[in-house]
Protein backbone atom coordinates (compact mmCIF):
# COMPACT_ATOMS: atom_id res chain seq x y z
CA UNK A 1 0.00 0.00 0.00
CA UNK A 2 1.76 3.10 -1.28
CA UNK A 3 0.95 5.88 1.19
CA UNK A 4 2.93 8.50 -0.76
CA UNK A 5 2.55 8.54 -4.53
CA UNK A 6 4.38 10.35 -7.27
CA UNK A 7 2.45 9.45 -10.39
CA UNK A 8 4.80 11.06 -12.89
CA UNK A 9 7.98 9.02 -13.24
CA UNK A 10 9.59 11.72 -15.36
CA UNK A 11 9.27 15.36 -16.37
CA UNK A 12 11.11 17.39 -19.01
CA UNK A 13 11.23 21.19 -18.83
CA UNK A 14 13.06 23.93 -20.72
CA UNK A 15 15.67 25.95 -18.87
CA UNK A 16 14.15 29.11 -17.40
CA UNK A 17 10.63 27.68 -17.26
CA UNK A 18 8.73 26.45 -14.21
CA UNK A 19 9.02 22.82 -13.08
CA UNK A 20 6.05 21.45 -11.14
CA UNK A 21 6.45 18.12 -9.38
CA UNK A 22 3.41 16.55 -7.77
CA UNK A 23 2.85 14.21 -4.86
CA UNK A 24 -0.29 12.65 -3.37
CA UNK A 25 -0.69 10.93 -0.03
CA UNK A 26 -3.35 8.78 1.55
CA UNK A 27 -2.58 8.89 5.27
CA UNK A 28 -4.38 11.85 6.87
CA UNK A 29 -2.14 11.48 9.93
CA UNK A 30 0.88 12.79 8.03
CA UNK A 31 1.75 16.22 9.37
CA UNK A 32 5.19 16.91 7.95
CA UNK A 33 6.24 16.76 4.33
CA UNK A 34 9.62 17.02 2.67
CA UNK A 35 11.21 17.05 -0.76
CA UNK A 36 14.56 15.41 -1.39
CA UNK A 37 16.73 15.64 -4.49
CA UNK A 38 18.94 12.78 -5.62
CA UNK A 39 21.76 12.70 -8.15
CA UNK A 40 23.00 9.35 -9.52
CA UNK A 41 25.31 7.41 -7.17
CA UNK A 42 24.64 9.86 -4.34
CA UNK A 43 22.29 9.79 -1.38
CA UNK A 44 19.21 12.02 -1.36
CA UNK A 45 19.73 15.57 -0.10
CA UNK A 46 17.10 17.59 1.71
CA UNK A 47 15.56 20.38 -0.33
CA UNK A 48 12.55 21.90 1.40
CA UNK A 49 9.86 20.94 3.89
CA UNK A 50 6.42 22.03 5.04
CA UNK A 51 4.40 21.47 8.17
CA UNK A 52 0.72 20.64 7.92
CA UNK A 53 -0.14 23.90 9.68
CA UNK A 54 1.05 25.77 6.59
CA UNK A 55 -0.03 25.70 2.97
CA UNK A 56 3.08 27.21 1.40
CA UNK A 57 6.78 27.38 2.12
CA UNK A 58 9.29 29.17 -0.06
CA UNK A 59 13.08 28.97 -0.23
CA UNK A 60 14.69 30.82 -3.10
CA UNK A 61 13.69 29.20 -6.39
CA UNK A 62 11.84 26.40 -4.58
CA UNK A 63 8.28 26.60 -3.27
CA UNK A 64 6.25 23.78 -1.79
CA UNK A 65 2.46 23.96 -1.70
CA UNK A 66 0.29 21.77 0.51
CA UNK A 67 -3.42 21.13 -0.07
CA UNK A 68 -4.56 19.09 2.92
CA UNK A 69 -8.13 18.64 1.76
CA UNK A 70 -6.88 17.10 -1.48
CA UNK A 71 -3.98 15.32 0.25
CA UNK A 72 -1.71 16.79 -2.39
CA UNK A 73 1.55 18.66 -2.39
CA UNK A 74 3.63 20.11 -5.15
CA UNK A 75 7.13 21.45 -5.60
CA UNK A 76 7.62 24.43 -7.90
CA UNK A 77 11.07 25.32 -9.22
CA UNK A 78 11.32 28.73 -10.86
CA UNK A 79 13.34 29.34 -12.95
CA UNK A 80 14.48 25.81 -13.72
CA UNK A 81 18.20 25.30 -14.34
CA UNK A 82 20.08 22.39 -15.96
CA UNK A 83 21.69 21.66 -12.57
CA UNK A 84 18.22 20.91 -11.20
CA UNK A 85 18.14 17.74 -13.32
CA UNK A 86 17.83 14.93 -10.75
CA UNK A 87 15.32 12.56 -9.19
CA UNK A 88 12.99 14.31 -6.75
CA UNK A 89 11.42 12.36 -3.89
CA UNK A 90 8.45 13.46 -1.87
CA UNK A 91 8.36 12.18 1.74
CA UNK A 92 5.99 12.41 4.68
CA UNK A 93 5.99 11.62 8.38
CA UNK A 94 3.66 11.44 11.34
CA UNK A 95 4.62 13.62 14.27
CA UNK A 96 8.16 13.84 15.43
CA UNK A 97 9.04 10.25 14.63
CA UNK A 98 11.12 11.31 11.68
CA UNK A 99 10.33 7.93 10.12
CA UNK A 100 9.91 9.06 6.55
CA UNK A 101 7.61 7.46 4.01
CA UNK A 102 8.88 8.18 0.51
CA UNK A 103 7.28 8.29 -2.90
CA UNK A 104 8.81 6.54 -5.89
CA UNK A 105 10.43 9.69 -7.27
CA UNK A 106 10.16 11.85 -10.38
CA UNK A 107 13.09 12.24 -12.74
CA UNK A 108 13.36 15.89 -13.76
CA UNK A 109 15.30 16.76 -16.89
CA UNK A 110 15.91 20.47 -17.51
CA UNK A 111 16.86 21.04 -21.13
CA UNK A 112 19.30 23.89 -21.87
Amino acid at each position, binding site marked *: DQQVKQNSPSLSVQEGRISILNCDYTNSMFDYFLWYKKYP*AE*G*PTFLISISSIKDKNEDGRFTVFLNKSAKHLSLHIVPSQPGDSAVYFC*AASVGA*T*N*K*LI*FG*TGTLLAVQP
Partner: protein
Amino acid sequence: GAGVSQSPSNKVTEKGKDVELRCDPISGHTALYWYRQSLGQGLEFLIYFQGNSAPDKSGLPSDRFSAERTGGSVSTLTIQRTQQEDSAVYLCASSYYFDEQYFGPGTRLTVT
Protein backbone atom coordinates in the same frame (compact mmCIF):
# COMPACT_ATOMS: atom_id res chain seq x y z
CA GLY B 1 32.80 18.16 8.17
CA ALA B 2 32.51 14.56 7.02
CA GLY B 3 29.14 13.34 5.88
CA VAL B 4 27.52 9.95 6.30
CA SER B 5 29.68 7.19 4.87
CA GLN B 6 28.70 3.67 3.91
CA SER B 7 30.71 0.60 3.01
CA PRO B 8 31.01 -1.24 0.80
CA SER B 9 29.70 0.88 -2.06
CA ASN B 10 28.87 -2.26 -4.02
CA LYS B 11 28.37 -5.84 -2.87
CA VAL B 12 27.64 -8.87 -5.00
CA THR B 13 26.76 -12.02 -3.10
CA GLU B 14 25.36 -15.43 -3.82
CA LYS B 15 21.88 -16.36 -2.75
CA GLY B 16 21.91 -17.88 0.72
CA LYS B 17 25.00 -16.03 1.96
CA ASP B 18 24.98 -13.51 4.80
CA VAL B 19 26.03 -9.89 4.23
CA GLU B 20 26.92 -7.00 6.50
CA LEU B 21 26.54 -3.38 5.46
CA ARG B 22 28.18 -0.62 7.46
CA CYS B 23 27.16 2.97 8.15
CA ASP B 24 29.24 5.70 9.77
CA PRO B 25 26.91 8.57 10.71
CA ILE B 26 27.84 12.21 11.10
CA SER B 27 29.65 12.71 14.39
CA GLY B 28 27.31 13.95 17.12
CA HIS B 29 24.14 12.87 15.38
CA THR B 30 21.78 11.09 17.73
CA ALA B 31 19.55 9.30 15.25
CA LEU B 32 20.41 6.76 12.56
CA TYR B 33 18.12 5.30 9.93
CA TRP B 34 18.30 2.54 7.35
CA TYR B 35 16.25 2.64 4.16
CA ARG B 36 16.38 0.63 0.98
CA GLN B 37 15.44 1.40 -2.58
CA SER B 38 14.50 -1.50 -4.80
CA LEU B 39 14.35 -1.07 -8.56
CA GLY B 40 11.47 1.22 -9.51
CA GLN B 41 10.45 1.77 -5.91
CA GLY B 42 10.69 4.64 -3.47
CA LEU B 43 12.87 4.58 -0.40
CA GLU B 44 11.49 2.06 2.07
CA PHE B 45 12.07 2.61 5.79
CA LEU B 46 13.74 -0.33 7.52
CA ILE B 47 14.89 0.61 11.04
CA TYR B 48 15.54 3.69 13.18
CA PHE B 49 17.81 4.25 16.18
CA GLN B 50 17.45 7.31 18.43
CA GLY B 51 20.02 7.69 21.17
CA ASN B 52 19.84 4.88 23.72
CA SER B 53 16.16 4.15 23.08
CA ALA B 54 15.00 0.80 21.74
CA PRO B 55 15.17 0.87 17.94
CA ASP B 56 12.05 1.10 15.79
CA LYS B 57 12.29 -2.10 13.75
CA SER B 58 8.84 -1.83 12.22
CA GLY B 59 10.15 -1.62 8.64
CA LEU B 60 12.33 -4.73 8.62
CA PRO B 61 10.82 -7.02 5.96
CA SER B 62 11.68 -10.33 7.63
CA ASP B 63 13.60 -11.82 10.54
CA ARG B 64 16.55 -12.33 8.19
CA PHE B 65 17.22 -8.62 8.60
CA SER B 66 18.77 -7.16 11.73
CA ALA B 67 20.74 -4.07 12.64
CA GLU B 68 22.74 -2.84 15.55
CA ARG B 69 24.33 0.41 16.51
CA THR B 70 27.43 0.20 18.64
CA GLY B 71 28.36 2.96 21.06
CA GLY B 72 25.68 5.20 19.67
CA SER B 73 27.65 5.65 16.47
CA VAL B 74 28.49 3.08 13.77
CA SER B 75 25.69 0.80 12.60
CA THR B 76 25.73 -2.54 10.84
CA LEU B 77 22.79 -3.91 8.87
CA THR B 78 22.96 -7.69 8.55
CA ILE B 79 20.99 -9.73 6.06
CA GLN B 80 21.09 -13.47 6.63
CA ARG B 81 20.49 -16.08 3.94
CA THR B 82 20.16 -13.45 1.23
CA GLN B 83 17.46 -13.81 -1.41
CA GLN B 84 17.29 -12.26 -4.88
CA GLU B 85 14.52 -9.93 -3.74
CA ASP B 86 16.98 -8.40 -1.26
CA SER B 87 18.82 -6.81 -4.20
CA ALA B 88 18.51 -3.05 -3.71
CA VAL B 89 20.41 0.08 -2.76
CA TYR B 90 20.63 0.27 1.03
CA LEU B 91 20.79 3.85 2.31
CA CYS B 92 21.77 5.04 5.74
CA ALA B 93 20.90 8.46 7.14
CA SER B 94 21.61 10.29 10.37
CA SER B 95 20.15 13.32 12.10
CA TYR B 96 20.50 15.38 15.25
CA TYR B 97 17.36 14.31 17.10
CA PHE B 98 14.44 15.18 14.79
CA ASP B 99 16.29 17.57 12.53
CA GLU B 100 16.96 17.05 8.84
CA GLN B 101 18.20 13.61 7.80
CA TYR B 102 21.52 13.44 5.97
CA PHE B 103 21.94 10.45 3.69
CA GLY B 104 25.00 8.46 2.77
CA PRO B 105 25.73 7.39 -0.83
CA GLY B 106 24.29 3.92 -0.29
CA THR B 107 25.43 0.33 -0.76
CA ARG B 108 24.24 -1.40 -3.92
CA LEU B 109 23.56 -5.04 -3.04
CA THR B 110 23.18 -7.59 -5.81
CA VAL B 111 22.16 -11.13 -4.92
CA THR B 112 22.89 -13.62 -7.71
